[in-house]
């Protein structure tokens, strides 16, 4: 499996191809959202909603062979696209890898100007919640 760094580089070069055109960048993000794995309906409940996101985001995680598997969804396609990028970088990794991940692709692709500052905050909340899960699983593994 490629490293977190390699995948981030990959994403950055994909976005570079799109260039400065904001519209095609958003189209691309929305398409990524459409390819997100289906979210289990029974998990679509209040306690799995991430606070601080302007659009609704649900996130759950479980552990398999020491690695964390995240599933997430949103009611907006752009947010789904952003989730799919995050999960592409962080899914199916060990908790410590996730906790130590330096997510620089976010600023390198100029996410702020793509999604605006309000959604950037929501994006930050998503990353925080992903790391909180990783921390919880790490603690559990160490007991």
């Amino acid at each position, binding site marked *: 499996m490629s490293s977190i760094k390699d995948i981030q580089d990959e994403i950055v070069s994909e976005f570079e191809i799109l260039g*400065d*055109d*904001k*519209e095609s*960048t*958003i*189209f691309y993000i*929305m398409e990524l959202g459409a390819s997100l794995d289906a979210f289990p309906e029974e998990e679509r409940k209040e306690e799995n909603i991430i606070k601080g996101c*302007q*659009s609704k985001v649900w996130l759950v995680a479980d552990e398999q062979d020491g690695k964390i598997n995240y599933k997430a969804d949103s*009611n*907006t*396609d*752009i*947010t789904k696209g952003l989730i799919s990028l995050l999960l592409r970088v962080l899914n199916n990794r060990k908790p410590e890898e996730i906790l130590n991940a330096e997510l620089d692709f976010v600023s390198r692709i100029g996410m702020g100007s793509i*999604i*605006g500052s309000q959604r950037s905050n929501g994006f930050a909340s998503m990353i925080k919640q992903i790391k909180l899960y990783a921390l919880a699983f790490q603690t559990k593994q160490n007991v």
Partner: protein
Amino acid sequence: MSLNIDQIRGLFPVLHQEVHGKPLIYLDNAATTQKPQSVLDALSTYYSHDNSNIHRGAHALADRATRYYEETREAVQEFINSKESAEIIFTKGTTESINLVAQTFGRKFIGKDDEIIISTLEHHSNIVPWQMLCEEKGAILKIIPITESGEIIFEEFQKLLSPKTKLVSIVHASNALGTINPVKKIIDAAHEVGAKVLLDGAQSTTHLEIDVQDLDCDFLAFSAHKLYGPTGLGVLYGKREILEAMPPFLGGGEMIKEVTFEKTTYNVIPFKFEAGTPNIADVIAFKSSLDFIKGLGKKNIKNHEDDLLAYSNELLTSVKGFIPVGTAIEKVSVLSFNIKDMHPFDVGVMLDANGIAVRTGHHCTQPLMKRLGIDGTVRASFAVYNTKLEIEKLAESVAKIARIKNK
């Protein structure tokens, strides 16, 4: 008279810019309108030449600033045709105007088991102050229901009215849907049971001719920034006898009477409600906004905006997946809509990428969105400087975006 829109656009520096490499199309006018050069100049002139505190100090600058400040009050009086300028109180905006009434009129005249009526269409700023008051006083908030098209059901309103009704506080034109309420009928019916009526004129004052004497409303609240004027400034109109019976809002007024010079000892209306140094510069500049509107003529502005609204409806109705939200017969120039299977946020971001500024979300009307069973809408709202060409660009972009999910 038809207006020369190109010439009008020339008066608004902010309109002439690109966003994301596309010419800006500003269609978020219900949130706030842009300001003409004359308003910007008035602000700059005030600070460059006249800056001084008002209603105090007997020097030339203070006199001048006071005179200009009071001239705006007279211009507002004329703008809404109130009987006298003393009935015009400057506030921070619609929100503060409504809170002022809740905290003074409400606290004094509304008690346990009394009723306040609002409608399903209200902006949060015409809901929350009354909820706060009801909680404090044990009063009861009643809500006028609406139809699917976004119009209040007048018969239901009549059923809510009773001698217990102390106040009807209702939006004149809905910010989320554009619906114009039949306020004259509402006011007359409310007065019959002895209730007072507050109109939230945040959206109506910029589009409709307002005559508070003819309407006979007891209060009218509105914001300068939606009238091509400065931000952080609003108006509360109230009938003299009611304002006089109300206690002051912010403390200090009566103290001031004891400690300042003769010229400053105001505690009559409107000064009773304007404690502290007010927003002098913005008040003075606001006169230029009112002059701008007067110069064009509200009828002409409304005609142009009605044309834009009709044109946008015509173009967008044929877009596959277009769902209009709020289809009242009487509307101000607000076009609220959704695209089938798309979230309004996504549509808004895509429009922004096309240089088109709209508002998306619940528009501070969450109970209304809940009633309509939606999360929110995309809202394009038009002002006098918008053009048919801009509407065509909007329709083109919406069509392109809608095709993503509506092939």
